[in-house]
């Protein structure tokens, strides 16, 4: 690789050809402030915060967009740079709702942080923000145009990663806004509520819809038994909200923290992930045996469900009828657990902690009410919201002693944990299906072909002489490719796992901010470490699941399963 030598702030540094000044400066220990830049996205160079002085250049240069050239002399903090940078920040603040204390992202905002770091305490310019209505039309995400700095990160995320382009720039000059086409409400367009936009928004222009207060209300209501479930991906990311390294496994602390908040029982979505594998595995085998619609598509990612319902409704028969683990849990909580502890379903308040914004939409669906009236999952909180709630309660997360989940829905296997990473549902299913079909014990439980960040992964499994081809896709731009393959009749797979978000649930729209592959890989690594560390790693070996079938469900795909654990999705094309 060709190395380029440049001088940054009088310090010589050697970087590979093609390195931007921004990244070269990082090597010298200098972080150049930036807002529109995102390491996994195309360079936009529109915020102009990262400008630097390059000797010989007439104007300041955007360090994100300027490649190092041999012999370049760069200064990142001259008065010329500092004045321009401060002015740019002041200009942004002058068109920004500056009520920081009332802001959902107070203390977690890049604009606020940069302003503080470079010494901007107020804008000398006139505030020109037009107080626009906040778009609360989506049950999952909220758009506040008054906070938007027009950096375009959300636009790129939606277009490039999800392939949807729900958001784009509208208007020109100071009329520029980031909105759905024609300025429509998010709730009225074919948005899938995945929340990826909110993960990369540097300010509070796009955020998850906040439902924390409802949970506090329920916890403080003595008439309610408040139970909570935690999704697999939350345990490997929640620590980030408290300054831990990405990829730290905090399961025990998380359970303790939820008890501290006042939840009556702390359960694990991994339990119903195991249950999903039993139901979905049997559904797959039944479809193969009885000539049902193949390939069968997984159905646990609600962003993905929103996608197929709105963009490929003609392929809905391919979708597994299994509810997602969240909703299986919700249905069991109200339709089984309530009775078991001698309560009425309406006295149970069921909360879920999810890495996902689309789960809010899912919980709200009419299909997800076993009594036809009340939601099975009353409130969904994202990982970020749980972080906030714990901060509200003054919980010193780092100091908590680890605790275990409650019985009966707290017991789970490694197969349930890996639901959190792309390929995990497939791997969990293969571990079970293989043993159910062949009656043999798997030698190696690790299906490495379906792991990792490659967009579309394939594998072949020998099930007692029958070769079964499977595929795994994550992010909707990849899902779209697979859908087109199915439509063209070229998808020779029996089973396809699809996750809406890049990297799977660990990269979900409700996860701690960042949205980089670097973060995703660390969380994925933690997911597989958590799997390895568990005594049971196959869903069908989960004794609590077995007990549930013995006591209540009777058999996979049985009458009760049909009523509680399965559903049908519909054409919602817009």
């Amino acid at each position: 690789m060709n190395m380029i030598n440049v001088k940054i702030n009088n310090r010589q540094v050697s970087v590979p050809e093609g390195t931007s000044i921004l990244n070269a400066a990082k090597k010298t220990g200098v972080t150049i402030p930036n807002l529109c830049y995102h390491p996994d996205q195309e360079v936009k160079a529109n915020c102009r915060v990262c400008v630097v002085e390059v000797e010989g250049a007439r104007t300041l240069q955007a360090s994100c967009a300027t490649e190092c050239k041999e012999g370049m002399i760069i200064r990142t903090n001259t008065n010329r740079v500092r004045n321009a940078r401060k002015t740019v920040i002041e200009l942004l603040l002058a068109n920004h709702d500056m009520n920081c204390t009332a802001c959902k992202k107070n203390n977690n905002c890049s604009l606020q942080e940069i302003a503080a770091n470079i010494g901007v305490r107020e804008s000398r310019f006139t505030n020109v923000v037009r107080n626009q209505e906040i778009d609360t039309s989506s049950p999952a995400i909220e758009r506040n145009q008054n906070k938007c700095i027009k950096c375009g990160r959300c636009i790129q995320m939606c277009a490039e990663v999800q392939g949807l382009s729900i958001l784009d720039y509208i208007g020109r000059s100071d009329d520029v806004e980031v909105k759905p086409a024609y300025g429509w409400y998010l709730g009225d367009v074919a948005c899938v509520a995945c929340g990826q936009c909110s993960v990369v928004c540097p300010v509070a222009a796009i955020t998850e819809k906040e439902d924390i207060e409802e949970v506090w209300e329920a916890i403080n209501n003595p008439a309610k038994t408040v139970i909570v479930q935690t999704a697999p991906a939350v345990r490997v990311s929640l620590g980030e909200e408290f300054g831990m390294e990405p990829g730290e496994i905090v399961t025990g602390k998380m359970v303790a923290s939820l008890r501290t908040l006042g939840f009556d029982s702390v359960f694990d979505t991994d339990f119903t992930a195991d249950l999903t594998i039993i139901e979905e595995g049997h559904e797959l085998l039944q479809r193969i045996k009885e000539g049902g619609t193949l390939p069968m598509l997984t159905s646990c990612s609600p962003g993905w469900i929103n996608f197929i319902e709105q963009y490929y409704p003609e392929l809905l028969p391919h979708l597994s009828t299994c509810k997602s683990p969240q909703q299986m849990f919700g249905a069991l909580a109200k339709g089984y657990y309530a009775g078991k502890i001698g309560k009425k379903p309406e006295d149970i308040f069921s909360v879920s902690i999810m890495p996902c914004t689309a789960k809010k939409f899912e919980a709200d669906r009419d299909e997800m009410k076993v009594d036809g009236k009340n939601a099975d999952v009353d409130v969904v909180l994202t990982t970020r919201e749980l972080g906030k709630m714990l901060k509200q309660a003054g919980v010193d997360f780092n100091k908590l002693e680890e605790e275990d989940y409650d019985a009966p829905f707290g017991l789970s296997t490694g197969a349930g944990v890996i639901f959190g990473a792309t390929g995990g549902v497939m791997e969990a299913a293969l571990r079970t299906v293989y043993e159910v079909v062949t009656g043999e014990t798997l030698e190696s439980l690790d299906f490495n072909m379906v792991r990792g960040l490659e967009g579309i992964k394939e594998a072949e499994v020998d099930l007692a002489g029958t070769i079964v081809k499977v595929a795994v896709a994550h992010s909707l731009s990849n899902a779209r490719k697979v859908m087109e393959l199915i439509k063209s009749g070229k998808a020779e797979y029996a089973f396809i796992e699809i996750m809406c978000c890049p990297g799977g649930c660990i990269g979900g729209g409700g996860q701690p901010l960042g949205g980089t592959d670097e973060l995703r890989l660390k969380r994925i690594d933690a997911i597989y470490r958590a799997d390895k560390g568990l005594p049971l790693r196959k869903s069908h070996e989960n004794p609590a699941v077995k007990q549930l079938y013995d006591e209540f469900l009777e058999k996979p795909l049985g009458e009760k399963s049909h009523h509680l654990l399965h559903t049908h999705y519909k054409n919602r094309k817009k």
Partner: protein
Amino acid sequence: MSNDTLSKKLLTSRFGKIKADSIDDYVSTGGYSVFKKALSMSGDDIISEIKTSGLKGRGGAGFPTGLKMDSVKQAEGTPKYIICNADEGEPGNFKDRLLMENDPHQIIEGMIISAFATGTNHGYIFIRGEYIKSIRTIEIALEQARVKGYLGDNILDTGFDFDIVVHTGGGSYVCGEEFALLVSIEGKSGRATYKPPFPTTCGLYNKPTQINNVETFCNIPHIMDMGGEEFSKIGTDSSKGTKLVCLSGNVVKPGLYEVPLGTTIRSIIDDLGGGVPNNREIKMVQLGGASGPVIPKSMLDLKLCVKEMNGNDLSFGSGAIIVMDERIRVLDILKRIIEFFRHESCGKCTPCREGLTQMLILLNRFIEGTATKQDLALLDVLIETMGQASICGLGQAAPTAIKKVLKYFPEEFEGRIHSMDSVTV
């Protein structure tokens, strides 16, 4: 200088003498003879001739045309594109329109020669959408050239293929900026982007692209006709050839004039334009158009010459000269200029999008007499930041006129600072 020497006519020599819709008129006055000669030369020889001529881009930035051609020729990647930037939107400019309406084949001939020299087979003329007559005239001329076999496949049996497509703008000023122009042709919304890479290596559809102004292309046949050496004898050391000047404002005879580079601004206003009506005094003159600098009457002896202009931190841009006499109100003029840019900003980068709005707020305070000393300081900061940190030429150049007014007419601002300011902190 006599009026005859002053009006050295190359590019406008056929104006009024030929019918624009007649290719025969063009041919009978020597047209399309030069490109036939050029097609027998090597590309390098043509480029070398252009380099010798010293021709610099006439769109405002003044980049040496020969160098640009060389860069496109050397660049890897095919197909290559050649684009004539006829999106003339700079207030005060109308030279490109008149070139298209009066002598369209001159442009086409210049483009064919340039395309041949650089090994380019695809051409575009990006014409401002409002220029309906120009669009029609160019389209007729292109069809005539095709019929004659000057455009199309295997031109004059040389094996060289080249054709030109007319692309019209949707009315956005910023599409005259070359990067916005490129994305506009690609069908995207016209917004500027960062550079490098430059279009010569990574232009239209990420392929090597030569973009020149209409007037630049019009010079090519003349250089090939008279030879680069001879051409370079016109003008000054740093500025060769003639320049089309769009003279407007408070002059007796506004209009389009072609002058040798090196002509003084005073000479253009007085000798060609007949001076200011009723012998009123000149207050200021704006050079190049709305994005250009203003100068006071004491500087009218400056020449249209890159070196002399640069030495004074000025530029004559695309050649517009707007004369404003003593009756004008300077701040009102500035307000109109900033309102124009605020309307035309693409809104992509912070300094331009937010800066122009704030500049207008500040200007209004001076106009209303409510400005403070702090406002003046803030205006300075804003001018500097927009000039230094905007992503494209629009934002960088938008405050040029204000900057020059602050330099040459500081009393216009200082005289309007609110008097109570002396007691405020």
